[in-house]
């Protein structure tokens, strides 16, 4: 190999060499982290919510006139009876919100009435005794709400329920030693609420950045939402009958009472659509970062092609001299490929340090996960291959330079 003379020659072309190496380094650092973030986002947006997503849809039901809480409660009960009677529906439940729906309440939880600092701030879903079955979440300990435990939650009420069901993640957060069942918790009140059940997995309503570490901390309250602001009807269709149920349910509700508002376009959403909407920005960000990565890689490749083409043009005579002195076309091709490889190795070396450095900074600043070395290694190989691919064209042109160039005066 002719590494020593290539390195010697590169020392005389420091500016171009350093620029390309830096370009490779920055591209590696940015692309590695971008791909890592993209991967994390993709994993994040495909994480299961814990509910029977394939069979669920939600109806956001607003009320067209203001009525007393009792009237709303009666209407909600009637609505639920109508929904549950539909042949395509397995079950239906009222809810103050639903996983991934985007809006809803968080309730700070403490373990003692005089505690001022909350232990967790889980998402709260108020609903009736059918909510558990409707959502399709798995009860792993304790029991479901009984019908006689269901209270009412109006828009101005803040009555803490005597019993709650919590997600396993929340239970573990509150009682790390696993003794959550039967324990009292306090939610901005001196009145305790007893944990009577634990469900396996139940995702929050929102998926924003700060909520990520607490994505599965949630709880169920035995309360029918009877607020004048409206409520969600969560409907679980029978297998294979989601589309039919989605068509029939709003009609059934309107048949019961027309004084309600269900947005004809966005009022009834399948859970797949709910998921798509909440992760829209994540998906958009992943696509944007992917595009930026592709553009960066293209710019780097173009930079390598440009510089090598320039060098080939600049060294045409030198290539001719080398050919005159006995270099074969393969030798010339090998020279430029090796030269690029050496620059690339310098670039990826710096790039690896940069990639890890940027990630460590993001770990401390944005609570990001540690960058997997597999990403760096993949990036290193990819960039070296990109460099070799980019240099191949100009290198092949160089290899076709005739040895007679050595005798040309310019």
């Amino acid at each position, binding site marked *: 190999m*002719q590494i*020593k*003379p290539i390195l*010697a*020659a590169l*020392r*005389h*072309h420091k500016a171009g060499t350093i620029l390309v190496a830096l370009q490779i380094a920055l591209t590696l650092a940015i692309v590695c982290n971008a791909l890592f973030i993209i991967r994390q986002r993709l994993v994040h947006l495909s994480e299961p919510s814990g509910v029977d997503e394939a069979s669920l849809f939600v109806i956001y039901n607003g009320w067209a006139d203001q009525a007393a809480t009792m009237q709303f409660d009666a209407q909600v009960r009637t609505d639920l009876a109508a929904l549950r009677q539909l042949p395509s529906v397995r079950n239906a439940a009222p809810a103050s919100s639903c996983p991934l729906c985007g809006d809803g309440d968080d309730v700070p939880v403490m373990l003692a009435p005089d505690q001022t600092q909350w232990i967790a701030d889980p998402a709260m879903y108020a609903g009736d005794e059918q909510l558990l079955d409707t959502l399709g979440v798995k009860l792993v300990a304790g029991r479901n709400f009984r019908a006689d435990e269901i209270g009412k939650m109006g828009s101005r009420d803040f009555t803490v329920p005597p019993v709650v069901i919590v997600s396993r993640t929340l239970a573990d957060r509150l009682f790390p030693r696993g003794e959550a069942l039967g324990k009292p918790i306090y939610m901005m009140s001196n009145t305790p609420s007893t944990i009577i059940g634990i469900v396996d997995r139940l995702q929050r309503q929102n998926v924003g950045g700060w909520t990520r570490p607490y994505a599965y901390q949630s709880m169920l309250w035995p309360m029918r939402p009877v607020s004048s602001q409206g409520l969600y009807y969560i409907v679980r269709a029978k297998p294979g009958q989601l589309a039919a149920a989605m068509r029939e349910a709003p009609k059934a509700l309107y048949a019961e009472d027309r004084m309600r508002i269900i947005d004809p376009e966005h009022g009834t959403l399948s859970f797949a659509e709910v998921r798509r909407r909440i992760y829209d920005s994540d998906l958009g960000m992943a696509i944007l970062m992917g595009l930026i990565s592709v553009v960066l890689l293209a710019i780097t490749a173009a930079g390598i092609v440009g510089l090598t083409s320039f060098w080939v043009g600049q060294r045409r*005579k*030198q290539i001719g*001299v*080398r*050919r*005159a*002195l*006995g*270099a*074969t*076309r*393969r*030798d010339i091709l090998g020279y430029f490929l090796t030269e690029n490889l050496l620059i690339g190795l310098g670039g990826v070396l710096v790039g690896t340090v940069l990639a890890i450095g940027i990630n460590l900074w993001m770990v401390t600043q944005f609570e990001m996960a540690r960058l997997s070395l597999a990403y760096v290694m993949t990036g290193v190989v990819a960039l070296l291959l990109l460099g070799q691919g980019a240099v191949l064209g100009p290198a092949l042109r160089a290899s076709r330079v*005739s*040895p*007679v160039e*050595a*005798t040309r*005066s310019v």
Partner: protein
Amino acid sequence: MLKMTHLSKVYRTEVVETYALRDFNIDVKEGEFVAVTGPSGSGKTTFLTIAGLLETFSGGEYHLDGIEVSNLNDNARSKIRNEKIGFIFQAFNLIPDLNVFDNIEVPLRYRGMKAAERKQRIMDSLERVGLASRAKHYPAELSGGQQQRVAIARALAGSPRLLLADEPTGNLDTQMARSVLELLEDIHREGATIVMVTHDPELAARAQRNVHIIDGQVVDLSEDPRFHTVHAVDEAHG
């Protein structure tokens, strides 16, 4: 050593054919020092590039060290250039990014020679041209004469069978030209075959034999002072 018979080199365009060499005949024996002279555009450089296998020819035969080269592929031609021919160019053609040592090493690396042998040959050839102390210097740090000496060292390091020199003193002042020429004469006395293209009559006079080219053909000056064309193989050795 170098024998061209009825050789021609034609440059063709869509409308015209230009003969750079036509029915060109020359025979250089081993150990000869031949100067090839002629006016500008006569075909001297074309002869040199074909002799050095830097470009192909259109017709005729060319035997180099007993090998008919017309049908050789690019790799074989590169190998012959590397092993049998040493080039000395008017513009020295040293690689500016490499120091003297690395410049001389270039053809030896292409030969796949081991590092120890390369080093030995490089130092020997630098001793030979009197520049052993300049091994780490870059071409830009040397005078024109020194650069040409390095180029000669590079040509000699591979122990070529044939040295081809293209106006080797063309870019040098008189004193430097003289020392380079003396070096070539020394190399010739030691048995090297040298073919030197020049338009300098004084330089040509120092060669063992002169071959004059006009309009792509060899002209025998000794037979006709008006430069008439000779079609037979040039036999005027010495």
